[in-house]
């Protein structure tokens, strides 16, 4: 009879199965999880999924690793995430709790894969609120693992905690946590990673978190307070070793004045884009605009614009510049986000943007 081959595999996935068989069976499943159809097939076999989850804690590291890799592949698409969240491990933990445990265990060899799974899961916004409870008790520990680059003793770098925190910051409660003392303000610890050279994933996580915060006007006053020096971290990546005349130089944040000639700009286009989106958000309100003007952001963008070659990011840059070069009476609105744009105009603007990007 034509029994489903996957059901046959099931017996080899049991913890008591022979090591080499467990190994071969999992290898096969890793291959299967590499394709969309494969994932669909896997998801239709709940027992297989259950076995894989259980094997993530297998004593044989190679086996645990493969089990985690399959889950990374499955969570790469939102449907996989939604399905996977329905399962629980042997110890009656859901997949989120399980992975948090791996990430926070300095002795777990494949903590990176667990971090990737969490990064994938948190990306699915519809599920975010429901899984948040699993994170809340561990936020300080997670942050600690993020800022402590040697947290994992078995060679995992845990860079993917970055995007995970960034994803989490789509939740208001996380944004609140990031900006409140407890006993330190978490965001302050995060900021230095905006210029963490060794990994653009970790770096992007920090920048993405700032961007998410900037989307919430509630935090603008906090973000733009002088003590935080957020602007220093935001502008540094889009500045090179260009020269400014003294009057312009004096307006810049002090740590960014007279940067060495060999200073390079951020090479990751997504990070550059996030920076401009953030600046754009700060332009929404008068206070923010004035702050940006007072700190020479216009000059930095002027020089940056000469350098940027990607049309999308150039457009994002011009959008900010267009607002900043206006005097406040020309802007004519305290809060730009409150200005209602008729739908037909909206379409027109979007069309203009399209054309601009196409031209280049």
């Amino acid at each position, binding site marked *: 009879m034509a029994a489903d081959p996957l059901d046959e595999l099931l017996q080899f996935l049991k913890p008591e199965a022979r090591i080499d068989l467990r190994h071969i069976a999992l290898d096969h499943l890793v291959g299967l999880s590499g394709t969309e159809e494969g994932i669909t097939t896997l998801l239709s076999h709940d027992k297989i999924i259950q076995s894989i989850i259980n094997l993530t804690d297998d004593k044989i590291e190679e086996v645990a690793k493969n089990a985690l890799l399959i889950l990374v592949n499955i969570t790469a698409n939102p449907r996989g995430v939604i399905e996977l969240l329905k399962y629980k491990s042997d110890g009656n933990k859901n997949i989120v709790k399980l992975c948090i445990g791996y990430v926070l265990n300095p002795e777990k060899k494949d903590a990176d894969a667990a971090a990737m799974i969490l990064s994938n899961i948190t990306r699915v916004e519809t599920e975010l609120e429901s899984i948040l409870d699993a994170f809340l008790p561990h936020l300080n520990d997670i942050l600690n693992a993020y800022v402590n680059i040697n947290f994992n003793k078995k060679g995992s770098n845990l860079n993917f905690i970055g995007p995970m925190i960034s994803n989490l910051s789509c939740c208001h409660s996380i944004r609140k946590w990031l900006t409140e003392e407890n006993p330190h303000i978490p965001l302050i610890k995060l900021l230095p990673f905006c210029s963490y050279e060794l990994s653009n994933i970790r770096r992007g996580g920090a920048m993405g978190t700032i961007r998410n915060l900037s989307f919430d006007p509630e935090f603008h006053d906090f973000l733009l307070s002088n003590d935080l020096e957020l602007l220093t971290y935001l502008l540094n990546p889009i500045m090179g070793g260009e020269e400014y005349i003294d009057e312009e130089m004096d307006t810049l944040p*002090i*740590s960014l*004045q*007279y940067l*060495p000639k060999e200073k390079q700009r951020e090479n990751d286009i997504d990070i550059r884009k996030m920076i401009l989106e953030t600046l754009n958000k700060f332009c929404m309100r008068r206070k923010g605009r004035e702050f940006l003007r007072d700190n020479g952001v216009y000059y930095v963008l002027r020089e940056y614009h000469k350098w940027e070659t990607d049309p999308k990011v150039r457009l994002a840059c011009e959008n900010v510049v267009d607002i900043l070069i206006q005097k406040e009476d020309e802007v004519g609105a305290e809060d730009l986000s409150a200005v209602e744009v008729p739908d037909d105009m909206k379409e027109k603007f979007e069309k203009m943007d399209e054309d601009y990007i196409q031209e280049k």
Partner: protein
Amino acid sequence: MSEEAPKVAKQPMTDEERLALCQKLDKELDDFIDSLEKKRYTEGWSEDTWEEEMDKHPFFMKSTPEDGALSPLAEGLAKLKYDPEENTPLELAANYKEDGNFNFKHKNYRLAILGYTEGIKQRCNDAEINASLYNNRAASHWHLKNYRSALFDSEKALSFNANHTKARIRAAKAALEVTKYDTCIEHCQKLLEGESKDKEIVELLNTAKKKKQQQERDQRRKERKNEKDSEQKDQVIKAIIQRGIKISKCDDEDDIDLSKLEPSLPGAQDAIVHIEDGVLRWPLLLLYPEFQMTDFIRGCPENVPLLNQLEQVFPAPWDEENKYSCSKINVYFEGYDKMPHVIDPSKNLGDLLVTKYYELKAGTPAFFILPRGSVVERRFLESYI
């Protein structure tokens, strides 16, 4: 009085005799006292000055005499307190510390430092007292504005007792004063690790961070300026080589450096040739042998005729007879053949510098100006023959 007594004591005295003697002695004593009362007691402390006197007495003095000399009694007392044979190192250290504290209280910080230093020298093995000696000496240094020493001593105190909060606060403050901002930040952060969120420390930390940023900015600015300057210099040298200008005392192109282009005129070093938008700008020396006068002009562009510069200086204030004007003069330079060469001032300065026999001395093009066909001119030319 006692001299008389043995002479009469050979035989037992009668009662009368004894009585008479007693009366006699009483009388003598009365007489003696009477004679004393006549002059006042002058060796004691007067009522007006007793406080002052008491201060001077070793038993009671509150500070050592200003001339530093100790009375023998004070010395003896001091020996009792400070003699190593009488005291253990710990006792001595404690004594010296007490001494230092006393002086510290009276703001005699220098003396206090001496006391604490002696205490430290005892090298007693009590960490607490050593920490305290160093901390107190640091405080004394602090009041004397010896911030470097205050920092050193505070850190020394911390080496004996890492939890000495006062010492750490002083270390942080002193570090700020001597612009060791990293050290200050480190101490502040250690202080803030404890639960107490002292506002003063937070402020100190922020100040240090800001100053550090400034310091780093200034450093970067300086580096950029240096870079620019040396770039400028390279450009100048490159331009001079390109133009083919001969520099005195330079054997070949590799030998040219800016030190050979510095004007030797007093106060004119900063007028050294520089380059602006690819144009060399020279300092220029005009000499008038007749009047032993000179003109010094800064920043003359190489692409402008020498005549333009001359037009600027004429008429000269010393030229009362109006002999010097652009149409009435000859312009010479002294070539490396040690001979005068007449030139056409309507040529650009840059072209003149590459005339045959021309050699640039002291980085400053120099020209002799003489009234054409004058006696002075003839004499000038004859002096070369």
